[in-house]
């Protein structure tokens, strides 16, 4: 299932957030999307997941055209995402937050109990893997920033998407846990899931990703394996500020 965009363009008034972005992510790998603040990474995610409609360009996923589709359609096609300004269901407990990510199918399916044992166990499994098992019964609004961040990730993983878009998963997360998230990403990747990670933490990016796309001013300026990117002049100039 390859996620590609071609000529993706989005302008907000005078600000061109995406300027004809042609991007192709490597399926089955951990992809990273990096770039300076305001280079259009989040906007790119928003377009891909249908949260906003691009002005021009096409988005395809595994050959299927996803351009302009509603967010839930994209989600059901197997693309999950987290938000940069982390979003959880504030008045639900952690378990419920994760359970809410289980999507009902048809009508009969939708009327089945949302609290089945197997699913609850699965939810707890995710919470455990992210190190927030102890918060299972706490309402999300009472959690600290980093805890919410992790909870959001757990929810997305519960939905079992094939392709997972993470917008700054490390932002505000304790470094000790970061290693864990890194491992988790690798493990899931080994299970066959594709990742696209937006991140400013270069250590993390360099250590876990197989393929890096660098954005600047709304379009990719470089793409390749970490070692290559690390050495790329343009990247250094545009992003790393050297």
């Amino acid at each position: 299932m390859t996620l590609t965009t071609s000529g993706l363009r989005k302008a907000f008034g005078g600000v061109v957030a995406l300027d004809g972005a042609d991007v192709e992510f490597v399926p089955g790998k951990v992809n990273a999307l990096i770039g300076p603040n305001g280079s259009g990474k989040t906007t790119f995610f928003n377009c891909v997941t249908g949260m906003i409609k691009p002005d021009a360009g096409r988005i395809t996923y595994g050959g299927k055209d996803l351009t302009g589709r509603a967010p839930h359609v994209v989600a059901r096609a197997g693309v999950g995402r987290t938000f940069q300004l982390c979003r959880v269901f504030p008045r639900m407990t952690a378990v419920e937050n994760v359970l809410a990510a289980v999507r009902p199918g048809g009508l009969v399916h939708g009327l089945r109990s949302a609290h089945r044992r197997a699913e609850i166990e699965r939810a707890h499994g995710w919470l455990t893997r992210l190190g927030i098992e102890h918060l299972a019964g706490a309402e999300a609004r009472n959690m600290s920033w980093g805890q919410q961040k992790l909870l959001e990730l757990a929810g997305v993983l519960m939905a079992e998407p094939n392709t997972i878009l993470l917008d700054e998963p490390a932002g505000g997360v304790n470094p000790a846990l970061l290693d864990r998230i890194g491992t988790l990403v690798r493990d899931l990747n080994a299970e066959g899931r594709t990742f696209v990670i937006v991140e400013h933490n270069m250590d993390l990016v360099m250590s876990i990703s197989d393929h890096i796309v660098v954005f600047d001013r709304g379009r990719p300026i470089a793409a390749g394996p970490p070692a290559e990117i690390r050495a790329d002049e343009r990247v250094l100039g545009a992003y790393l500020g050297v």
Partner: protein
Amino acid sequence: MVSEIELVDVQAGYGRAAPVLRGFSVAVPAGTVVCLVGPNGAGKSTVLKVAAGLLAPRTGRILVGGQDMTGAGPQKMLAQGVALVLQGHSVFREMTVEENVLLGGYTLTDKSKRARRAAFVKELFPVVGERWHSLAGLLSGGQQKQVEFARSLMVDPKVVLLDEPSMGLDPKATSTIFDQVVRMRDAGTAVLLVEQNARRALETADLGCVLDLGRVHISGPAADLLADPQLGELYLGGRPAEKPPVP
């Protein structure tokens, strides 16, 4: 020498729930950067909220410049020279960048000073100047963070409390912020810094303090903390500190 800000044996928490801070003390003298690190939910943000007057402690005292300010609200704290930059996003979304930045100088009576500071922050963070007239809520996450930091620079307080200022910032902006922290310290400001980018922060800081479950777990000179392998594993991430990749 009195510390610019000092929290003494503070207990604090939200609503009726169990306390988050359970007897926490910290003191930050002028011209010092104290870095607070700890796992998610340890209570770091809570410490800063208490220090800035947003959250009243249940017990304990808060001294600013040696004066007891326990129970004072943020307005009074600011008047005493204590400023806080919140975690997450706290720009005024439906106001322009200009309005946001200028509001940072709300307490300034001197118009020319306000203009001077505004020019300074515009220079420091180019994006602030570039997007001067757009609504702050429409900026990207990192841009908003920069606006926020710029806003806090409109006044020059004696004590600066920073809650993960580098979160979501690209390496360039992160450097700017850490440089700024150093500059503030050199100008004699007391800085209490909370960071998850722990190694980087500890490198900048003079003192470090590891917070876990609302208590001080360990504290000491930042360099010592950095060197401790166990701390490294538990709180600072397993990998040794790595400089930004330079070829």
